[in-house]
């Protein structure tokens, strides 16, 4: 360079601004998808704001007692009885039936997806996969009716068996021998409902297991089961966890089916075989028709709590998926 010595003393140039002129079609497309993205955010925000606005008075009246109090009493203005609203029992009930559902659905779903990926004969794979996916298409009220009329009589028998042989474990104990409409049965119905979701997600993950690792395991003399344990499950754990959390979220929000098969009671009950349970979503449906204006606000507040919990579960799902994705692969 001719005047290199001069250049050496100059400061480096400022970085250039790099731009591109998008085409018209590109700009339109960008507008459309941006609108789509923001719409979903907006809807989410508006729902939360609506629930918070309508429920604010209740939160202000009861404070944290709204969450911890088990009693839901609409009050009687004529008799001068003040309303006392609390969703503690329903909150506990929601968590109990969702965990029961998850405990039943998770092993079944993982087993089903392993079967569909590694064991099923080729000609059965497609039809069975479609069948499992179709389970998700059945309306929840149908699950509820089926649960009430078909499943419950059998489930009561299983519940009695569980109680007879495992009754010494506190959760399988019952204060009274009433086994109908218990959290166990509600959880069973919910399990059937969330199996397709968890199965579909696990299966999706299992099909992505790198073939070279599968082959490496087989080439070392692995049996199918030991290959699955060493390669498939570590690889798929994050996906399974994510699917389980999605299922949990769905189970927590499920309304009609639970309403039909669960005996709502405003008491905290951890005896899952006993006919007494709770579910925020079902309670809202239950109370909605006959609620006084103030009670209605309470129901909105309950909805907000449920909304917050499912959001939290989904967030946790994300966290788990990301953490296992980092270390597990």
């Amino acid at each position, binding site marked *: 360079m001719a005047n290199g010595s001069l250049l050496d003393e100059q400061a480096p140039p400022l970085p250039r601004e790099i731009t591109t002129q998008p085409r018209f079609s590109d700009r339109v497309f960008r507008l459309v998808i941006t609108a789509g993205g923001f719409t979903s955010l907006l809807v989410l925000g508006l729902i939360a704001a609506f629930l918070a606005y309508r429920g604010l008075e209740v939160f202000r009246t009861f404070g944290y007692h709204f969450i911890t109090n088990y009693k839901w009493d609409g009050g009687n203005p004529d008799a001068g009885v003040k309303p006392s609203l609390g969703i503690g029992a329903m909150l506990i009930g929601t968590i109990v039936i969702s965990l029961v559902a998850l405990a039943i659905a998770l092993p079944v779903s993982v087993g089903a997806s392993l079967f569909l990926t590694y064991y099923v004969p080729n000609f059965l794979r497609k039809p069975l996969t479609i069948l499992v996916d179709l389970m998700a298409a059945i309306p929840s009220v149908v699950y509820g009716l089926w649960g009430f009329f078909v499943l419950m009589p059998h489930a009561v028998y299983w519940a009695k068996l569980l109680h007879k042989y495992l009754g010494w474990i506190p959760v399988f104990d019952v204060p009274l021998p009433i086994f109908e409409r218990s959290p166990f049965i509600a959880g069973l119905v919910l399990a059937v409902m969330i199996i397709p979701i968890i199965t579909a997600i696990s299966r999706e993950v299992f099909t992505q297991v790198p073939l070279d*690792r599968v082959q*490496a*395991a087989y*080439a*070392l*003399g692995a049996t199918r089961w030991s290959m699955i344990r*060493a390669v498939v499950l570590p690889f798929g754990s994050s996906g399974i966890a994510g699917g389980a959390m999605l299922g949990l979220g769905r189970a927590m929000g499920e309304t009609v089916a639970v309403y039909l098969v669960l005996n709502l009671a405003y008491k905290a009950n951890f005896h899952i075989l006993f006919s007494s349970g709770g579910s925020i979503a079902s309670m809202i449906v239950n109370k909605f028709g006959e609620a006084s204006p103030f009670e209605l606000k309470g129901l909105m507040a309950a909805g907000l709590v449920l909304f917050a919990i499912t959001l939290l579960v989904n967030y946790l799902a994300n966290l788990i998926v990301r953490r296992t994705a980092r270390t*597990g692969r």
Partner: protein
Amino acid sequence: MIRLFNENRYERDAVSTPPNEGEIVSSLASVANRLPRISNEVQASGADLEARGVHAWFGSRHVLADVNLSFPAGRVTALIGPSGCGKSTFLRTLNRMHEFVPSAAMAGEVLLDGVDIYKQGTDVTKIRLKIGMVFQKPNPFPSMTIGENVLSGLKLAQIKRSNKEDLMEECLTRAGLWNEVKDRLNSHGGSLSGGQQQRLCIARALAVAPEVLLMDEPCSSLDPGSTLRIEETIRQLSQSVIVVIVTHNMQQAARVSDYTGFFLTEGGPGRLIEYAPTREIFSRPKDERTEAYVTGRFG
């Protein structure tokens, strides 16, 4: 010694105009001649692998026809040939990895110590324990540590063994990796370089004490330095294990193998064209197609 051959390859790569075939033949032959030989009389492991009339199909496509080859103990056999000639498929019929492709079929016999590994009632997992495999792409288990990777075969095949530490050290030493990883056996397999990962895979394959080690282009994704280390490893292994190696790199075949089989397809299924001591394949091949291939006229 081996370094010398590697430089030899650089020389060849540096030639800008294609050398005439005579030069290449003589250079390959000299490589083969200068190699330290393990005499074939050394019957270290006593095992013996033989393929008889092996055919292979994918669906209706006949990809391999009538291969007869035997792999006596203490011998490294290289399988060479252009892409798609069926050499990898053949290798995978030797430990029954071939059948993982859903439409795959085979005919013929593969005898390990005189017993057909495809015989009815055979537990395939026991076959693969005796006939290990190293793949083209290094594939350590990423969820396991280096140490766990070495011992993974025991876990996978549900073999109980005491003094695992010793076994781990022994296998890593035999694979030429011990000194590089002995201080970080608890870090993940993915933290190693590609060449180290491949040697880890070799150590892993050795941990279940196979009689045969099949290697499917084990160096094709590695740099020259790692390739050298692995070739040294192969030479050492050949004293205790039957090694069969598929390679696209003819220099490598010349460097590591005692015998070489040349596969070729001419439209139809791949066939074994010629099988002879490596020296002969590269210096005076009997078949003109072999000569054309080893001199670089095609493939």
